[in-house]
């Protein structure tokens, strides 16, 4: 049960399924928002620290630069074909298509964290620097998305660029991830040891509780998703499969180890639901939040957590 679909029976995933089932059955189970936010901050700090400590151990390598470059390129380029597919097949207007495309170029921290858990327990731990790649991939897609919107639609106001860039780069999740990564780098294995019980030993258990909440959130959104058509729902499954495959291929081609290539696939496949929606609400108010949150959170996220991660992992294993 160590690999493949056996993963679906690990408590981490089962708690996600429990949350989703409770929401579909219209149970009043709910996790206070402050707790959910607290758990998500914990996960970011923990994954950042872990990555930093690992890089402190392994040192800077050529792999790292390759992975960073690959991540940046993927984040910038994925929105382009996504935009076209959303306009043609998805029948969205230019603003909505651009906003959704930005989400798919960016990444989801929780999908990554869950993927790392699965890879770790399958004996394929990705390299620590993948956390830095994650942080690098969060924001470029936003800028690409806004450029697409301005091209495709008239009447998209010239936003105060500086303000938006500031808000995006200093988004809380980016800062916490990067900051914790640097702290891990400075502290190293010895400095990390006394705080490891909280950030390492407790990690999986806390991930269970957080995914319980994410299951509730994703399923409630799917239930109330008026904005979702069958066309956009299909794209919300096709995008992760295609982007995940491309991500794995690029990773293998760039010479990453199996776990890191799988992690790059997971990053490429994942869609943001923290940094990008906030930026879009500010910069593209004409875009429909119901649409982009439904696609990324209610369809793509559950798909990746349950089927996507094993898929990209299997692909990476087969190719390397």
């Amino acid at each position, binding site marked *: 049960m160590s690999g493949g679909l056996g993963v679906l029976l690990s408590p981490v995933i089962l708690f996600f399924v429990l949350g989703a089932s409770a929401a579909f059955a219209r149970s009043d189970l709910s996790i206070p928002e*402050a707790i959910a936010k607290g758990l998500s901050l914990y996960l970011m700090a923990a994954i950042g620290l872990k990555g930093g400590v690992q890089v402190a151990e392994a040192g800077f390598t050529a792999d790292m630069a390759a992975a960073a470059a690959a991540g940046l390129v993927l984040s910038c380029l994925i929105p382009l074909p996504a935009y076209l597919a959303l306009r043609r097949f998805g029948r969205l207007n230019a603003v909505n298509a651009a906003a959704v495309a930005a989400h798919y170029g960016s990444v989801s921290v929780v999908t990554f964290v869950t993927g790392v858990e699965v890879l770790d327990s399958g004996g394929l731990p990705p390299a620590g620097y993948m956390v830095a790649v994650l942080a690098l991939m969060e924001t470029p897609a936003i800028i690409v998305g806004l450029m697409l919107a301005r091209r495709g639609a008239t009447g998209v*106001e010239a936003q105060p660029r500086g303000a938006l860039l500031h808000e995006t780069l200093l988004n809380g999740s980016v800062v916490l991830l990067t900051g914790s990564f640097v702290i891990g780098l400075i502290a190293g294995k010895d400095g990390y040891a006394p705080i490891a019980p909280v950030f390492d030993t407790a990690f999986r258990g806390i991930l269970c509780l957080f995914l319980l909440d994410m299951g509730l959130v994703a399923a409630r959104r799917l239930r109330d998703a008026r904005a979702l058509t069958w066309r956009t729902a299909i794209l919300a499954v096709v995008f992760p499969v295609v982007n995940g495959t491309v991500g794995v291929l690029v990773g293998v081609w760039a010479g990453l180890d199996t776990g890191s290539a799988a992690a790059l696939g997971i990053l490429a496949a994942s869609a943001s639901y923290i940094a990008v*929606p*906030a930026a879009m609400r500010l910069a593209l*108010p004409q875009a429909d939040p119901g649409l982009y949150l439904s696609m990324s959170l209610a369809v793509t996220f559950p798909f990746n957590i349950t089927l996507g991660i094993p898929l990209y992992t299997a692909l990476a294993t087969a190719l390397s």
Partner: protein
Amino acid sequence: MTDTVSRRKIEVLVDAPLIPRVTAAAERAGVSGYTLLPALGGSGRGGRWSDDQVTGVESKVMFMTVASAEKAAALIDALAPVLESHGLLLINTAVEVVRGGKF
């Protein structure tokens, strides 16, 4: 009897990421006193929402200020673009306030 004066209470339901822009507009309109109140959820033409601190994007906050009729009008004008672009709800009520140290 304590002395009271007539004022306008302006309430605006604001998307959380927009708050800095609304308070900045208020300060430009000469409104330096305001209070932010939390909201839990709601429903409108854009569908249902509920406070969601993880993604953060759907949270809304009630911006509230008490001001003289002229300042209130200036504030509404200053907010007009963002009311328009984001379709925000603005409520304007006639109230009385006690002249404590405040007004």
